[in-house]
C-alpha cells in the first residue's frame, strides 16, 4: 500500500513538473501575448492540479485532502478568469491601436 501511494505521488509530481516545464517553454517560444496566454494557462491548470493531487494522494484520506481539493477547485475557477482579463486587455489595446492607425491614415 505504501509503495503504491509513493509511486503514485512520484508519478503525479513528475507529470506536474512536465506540464510546468511545457508551460514555461511555451511562454518563451510563443510569438505574441495570446499564444503565450495559451501556454501559461495550461501549466497552471494541469501543473498545479497534478501537484496538489500528488499531495492529496500522499496525505491519504484526511480532512487536509479535502482542503487541498478545494484549493484545486478555486485555482481552476480563478485561473481562467485571470487569463480572460489579460487577453481582454491585450485585445482592447490592439483594437485601440488599429483605430488610431486608421484615423491617422484618414487625417
Amino acid at each position, binding site marked *: 500500500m505504501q509503495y503504491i501511494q509513493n509511486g503514485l505521488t512520484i508519478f503525479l509530481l513528475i507529470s506536474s513538473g512536465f506540464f510546468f516545464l*511545457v508551460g514555461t517553454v511555451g511562454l518563451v517560444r510563443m510569438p505574441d501575448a495570446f499564444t503565450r496566454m495559451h501556454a501559461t494557462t495550461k501549466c497552471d*491548470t494541469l501543473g498545479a492540479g497534478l501537484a496538489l493531487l500528488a499531495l492529496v494522494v500522499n496525505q491519504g484520506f484526511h*480532512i487536509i485532502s479535502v482542503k487541498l481539493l478545494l484549493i484545486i477547485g478555486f485555482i481552476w*475557477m480563478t485561473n481562467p478568469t485571470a487569463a*480572460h482579463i489579460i*487577453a481582454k486587455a491585450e485585445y482592447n489595446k490592439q483594437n485601440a491601436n488599429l483605430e488610431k492607425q486608421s484615423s491617422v491614415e484618414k487625417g
Partner: protein
Amino acid sequence: MEGKKSWVNKKNVCLFTLLLLFWFVLAPELTIETIMVGAIACSMVVLYSQDIIFGDKEMPLYSLKKLKIFVRFLATLLIEIVKANIEVAIIVLNPAMPIKPSFIRVPMMLKNDVNKVIYGNSVTLTPGTLTVDITDDEFIIHALTESAAASMEGSFIEEYVSKMEGDTK
C-alpha cells in the same frame, strides 16, 4: 437571537448550512469556539448578502436534475482538459511549432449570466482555446490551431451548457 426569526426562510437556511459546512472544512479543529465563531460569521454573511445571492434570475439553475448534468459535464471536461493539454504540450515541444492563431466568433446561445461564465471559463480551461471577450451577442475566442478553432463549433461544452439552460424557460 430573537431578531433572526424573521430572516429564517428556506433560502437563508440553505445558504447558512452551506457556509457552515465550508467553515467546518476550513476550521483546524472542531471545538465549541470554532463552532460559535463560525455560526456568528455565517449568520452575518447571510444577513448582509441575502439581497444579492440566489436571486430570482439564477434560482432556476439549482435543481437536482441540473446538478446531475453539471457533474457529468465536469467529468467530461476533466477528460477533455487532460487530452487537450497533452496536445498543446506536443505542439509546444515540436521544433517546427505548427501554430496558426486566429480569432473566432461563436454566436451567443445563452441567456443566463452564470451559464455564460461557465461556458467562458470552460473554454479557457480547455487548452488551445481562450475566451477573450463576451459581448451581448457573441463570444470572441482565440484559438491556437486550426483544429482547436474547428472544435469550437458544436463543442461538448456548448451542448452541456445549453442543456443546463434549456429547462429554465
